[in-house]
């Protein structure tokens, strides 16, 4: 988790965006000191609601950069994710994907502490970038927690995108309101060793399959009008002068 | 105090009828009026009715205790609400859509081919306004002038003329009916 945060911080640095304008609604508990170091506004939200909360933040004040961090996003918050992507709300979603895989590249992997994963052991996980892409996300990428440089670049790039961007980060993470105890280095290393970078791969093909290497990289990068843009355009068209545009691309 | 029920099926503008009369009464006639609606889940074709209480003082009980006037635009509406019409009540109905039973008590029935008139005017949808004209002439719960002011508030701008025409048609027909009724006596 710490490596993600430092990569994220580096990403903000690279993007040149004012930290004060960044809000992070998250269902992952962050240490207050970490937040202080990041210099952002942080909200710990009930599980799964980070994106919906972020939607409110962004709509209330379009000049904010909202970065929802989602721990077990794809369970409780799946709906907010697909709809956020459809609307193209301008959010950068960091999805910390920490579910327990049984096998990767044919090898059993060290298990995390929790006996539960967000999915039962015999279930197949989502192909997350593909799902995001199919709902309309304009930027999808996947990295592991050890691809810090790439992750930072991705964050910097995505922070400048107008629309819903999603970066999936594979990392052992906390679930269920428990605290972060330690990061299992072993697992991290394992992820790193068993992944291969394939930028611009069709998201259709990047499912995490038990016997194959994890494909990481940037998969989608396109343009679409954001919710606020189309809101303004459509209402100006119909209402004309009666309508005052709301926010706009950069607030 | 007048307690009025408009009954028909969804899509006939039953609720809008209630709103128009209520608006005429409370905004232009300066009385108190409360309109409440009841409808089934279906948008069209379901039983639909609106209840309107017009009073000189604040309306406390928002529903009808005994309907004094029933405006029936469907057989189902008539069958359902005729029994609650008070003995001295007035019954207004569309003669093509409602086949009334033998009248009871001192209920006075008044018939109008509202839907047919509306179809003649070009739009079946204004049948309710035709019947509102008829209603105004017969019941005098609201004044003709107030109704003429209330209708344009409640319909899209393009349709104002047609609606006013429909209203006149119903109103005049109502006056005729009243005249005819008086003649034999």
């Amino acid at each position, binding site marked *: 988790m710490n490596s993600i945060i430092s990569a994220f911080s580096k990403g903000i640095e690279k993007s040149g965006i004012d930290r004060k304008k960044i809000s992070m609604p998250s269902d992952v508990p962050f240490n207050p000191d970490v937040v202080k170091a990041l210099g952002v506004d942080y909200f710990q939200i009930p599980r799964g609601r980070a994106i919906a909360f972020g939607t409110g933040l962004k709509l209330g004040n379009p000049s904010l950069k909202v970065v929802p961090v989602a721990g077990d996003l794809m369970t409780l918050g799946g709906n907010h994710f*697909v709809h956020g992507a459809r609307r193209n709300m301008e959010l950068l979603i960091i999805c910390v994907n920490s579910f327990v895989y049984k096998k990767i590249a044919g090898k059993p992997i060290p298990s995390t502490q929790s006996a539960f994963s967000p999915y039962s052991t015999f*279930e197949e996980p989502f192909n997350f970038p593909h*799902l995001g892409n*199919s709902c309309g996300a304009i930027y999808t990428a996947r990295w592991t927690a050890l691809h810090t440089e790439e992750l930072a670049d991705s964050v910097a790039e995505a922070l400048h995108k107008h629309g819903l961007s999603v970066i999936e980060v594979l990392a052992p993470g906390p679930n269920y309101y428990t605290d972060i105890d330690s990061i299992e280095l072993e697992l991290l290393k394992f992820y790193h060793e068993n992944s291969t970078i394939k930028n611009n791969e069709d998201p259709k093909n990047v499912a995490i399959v038990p016997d194959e290497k994890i494909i990481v990289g940037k998969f989608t990068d396109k343009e679409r009008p954001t919710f606020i843009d189309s809101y303004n*355009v459509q209402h100006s068209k119909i209402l004309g002068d009666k309508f005052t545009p709301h926010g706009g691309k950069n607030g | 105090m007048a307690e009025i029920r408009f009954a028909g099926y969804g899509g006939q503008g039953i609720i809008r009828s209630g709103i128009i009369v209520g608006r005429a009464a409370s905004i232009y006639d300066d009385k108190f009026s409360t309109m409440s609606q009841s409808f089934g889940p279906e948008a069209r074709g379901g039983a639909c009715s609106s209840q309107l209480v017009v009073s000189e003082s604040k309306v406390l009980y928002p529903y009808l205790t005994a309907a004094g006037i029933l405006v029936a635009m469907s057989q189902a509406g008539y069958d359902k609400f005729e029994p609650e019409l008070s003995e001295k009540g007035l019954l207004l109905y569309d003669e093509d859509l409602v086949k009334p039973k033998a009248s009871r008590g001192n209920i006075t029935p008044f018939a109008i081919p509202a839907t047919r008139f509306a179809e003649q005017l070009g739009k079946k949808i204004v049948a309710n306004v035709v019947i509102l004209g008829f209603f105004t002439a017969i019941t005098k719960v609201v004044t003709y002038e107030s109704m003429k002011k209330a209708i344009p508030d409640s319909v899209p701008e393009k349709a104002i003329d047609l609606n006013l025409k429909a209203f006149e048609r119903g109103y005049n027909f109502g006056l005729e009916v009243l005249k005819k009724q008086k003649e034999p006596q």
Partner: protein
Amino acid sequence: MKAKETKTKEIQSVPSKKGEIHPMENLLRMDRMPHIWCPSCGIGLAVTAFASALEKANIDPDKISIVSGIGCTGRVAGYVKLDSFHTTHGRPIAFGTGIRVANPKIKVVVFSGDGDLIAIGGNHFIHAARRNIDMLVVCVNNFIYAMTGGQVAPTTPLAAYATTSPYGCVEPPFNIPYIADSSGAVYVARWTTLHIRRLINSLAEALQKKGFSVVEVISPCGMYYSRINKLGDGLDMMKFYHDNVEIRHGEDTKNLDIGFQTKIICGKFVDRERPSYMERYNQWLSGVKGGSRDEG
């Protein structure tokens, strides 16, 4: 109303004169007719298609359970004479999952609308597809929330009007087959209510499929969607389907977006095999204890 000029007033119909009943009646709850759907609504057609498909697929009606949510289409469960559940808004898939997992002998059919399944139930939809729960989802898409009076739905095309988008919809709609495909559904098809024979065939095929099957049925809403958008009534919508539908089997699901009054691509898009939830479950179970359950 399409009253044509004719002198004939007497209706030359032969209603049940030989004691015959409508062929659907043994599958429908006739004591609840007439149903609540508006004139020229397409949901009745979807029900007809489903009932016909049930006969065609030759499935024991006792072993089918139909679950609906809230909304116009949500009422389907109440009219079909099967073990039927009218549940809460958005949750029929979750409810059906419980039925299916607890008793794998029951085939679950979820019959509901776009707002129910894709808006509030979106999460259950994608997760059930991912798990590949063995059920057939019939999603009747009329582009709007009709039961509550015409609010914008996640399927309402861009710039279309609805009561909660009084100046035109600002959100792009979902491409339901695409999202079903990307979440892992094994059978995905889309038809309009006009393509009734193909719809029946497709539903019959999907009923026999093992795994999460989705059939999207584009249906006219003659009361709200077409009225607010000035598209005429249900019949005009049907005519529109007639003129603007293109059938392309096996089309890549990403090309299936529907715009406002644009071409609609219909067909069967996905038909694949994936181990279903119960298969994986049993596999896991056999690994644990040796014994395995029967897959219904």
